[in-house]
């Protein structure tokens, strides 16, 4: 049975109940849900941002590492080159030194030989002069000749004995 009073008072009652429920019940619930939504969204954004930052840092680190490696390689190369150069230099110097010493030795020998030759030549000249003078001095007769031989034999004998 339709009752006008029930009809109107029901609407009013429901509106009162609705007002209270939405005030004390739904609003806090919706607030919490909204709060969570905002929180989750912000967290997601943060995570995204952090990931980008991490990627950027990683890239930077990688670049830096690469750069450092390159630098180290350069330094090593330079050092090696310098060492090579030094070694070559030292070798060259040593060779030069050796050549110099050799040349000096050779020169010394040459000089001594020349000196010895000179002395020998001088001695020979002296001897030939002596011999000549001796020959010229006692060029004479048979007797002298014999005496000379005798003397020579004597000297030879002396030399032998």
């Amino acid at each position, binding site marked *: *049975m*339709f*009752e*006008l*009073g*029930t*009809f*109107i*008072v*029901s*609407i009013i*009652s*429901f*509106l*009162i*109940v*609705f007002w*209270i*429920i*939405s005030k*004390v*019940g*739904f*609003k*806090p*619930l*919706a607030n*919490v*849900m909204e*709060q*969570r939504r905002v*929180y989750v969204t912000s967290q997601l954004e943060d995570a995204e941002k952090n990931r980008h930052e991490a990627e950027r840092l990683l890239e930077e680190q990688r670049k830096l590492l690469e750069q450092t490696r390159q630098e180290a390689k350069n330094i090593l190369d330079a050092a090696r080159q310098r060492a090579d150069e030094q070694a070559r230099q030292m070798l060259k110097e040593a060779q030069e030194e050796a050549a110099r010493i050799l040349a000096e030795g050779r020169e010394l020998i040459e000089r001594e030989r020349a000196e010895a030759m000179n002395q020998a030549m001088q001695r020979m000249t002296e001897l030939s002069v002596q011999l000549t003078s001796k020959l010229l001095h006692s060029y004479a007769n048979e007797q002298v000749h014999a005496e000379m031989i005798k003397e020579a034999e004597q000297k030879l004998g002396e030399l032998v004995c």
Partner: protein
Amino acid sequence: MPAFPTLFRHTFPINLTTIAMIFLTGLIVIIVMRVGLRRLDMRNPRGLQNMLEWAAEFAANMARDTMPTEQAVRFILPLAFTMLFFLFVANWLGLIAIVAVHIHHPIQHWGITPQDFAQSKGIVELFDSPTANMSMTLGLAVMVWLLAHARGLRHPKQWLIHFYKPSPLAIIEEITNPLTHGMRLYGNIFAGEALLNVLVSAPRLFGWVPLTLPLTIVWLLYSAFVSTIQAYVFSILMCLYVGNKSFEGHQHH
């Protein structure tokens, strides 16, 4: 037909049982919500809070399916949630218990006239589903109808156009929509309770087990199902009707 305590029986009849049950239902909803929201936790919701959030999410999805804009969704969401929860509790109350007293003579203070007394055989219901009352459900339906038109009047031009735009028959809908909206809920709940009443008042075995116990249980389960579905149907139709008259989204078409 059982009788109800009624105020102003002859001039402006107000069914006191229905009104009291509306407030009782509201009280139950509020208590459940307050218990659920007792320890509000944003990070890890527990137990009842989870249930309530699920219900709110459900109501929000329902509103989003039927509303043209997010603004309209925000407008209807508290009402959709309240309606869903309120009707769910209201429909179930009549299934859980119906309390009636048996009186031996008409009581004029309760607004029970001799005709009522004769018709109801002295049975006066004090505890019942509020939604098992035609006036109450029609009241909700008309309230929704008024709300829809109030929202439609924000755009008066489109509101006027929509009466004859697809066809002038749309005007008929303005009458049938609230009527069917309210009567559907009333019919389902009232029928469920009426048949349950009949089944329970069948002859008893050993004085207390009704002979129709299996049927009663089957019907009780079915009524529970119907009660839940009707709460959902009423709420989604409300969203649909208000959504249809929210013209702000239609402007772009």
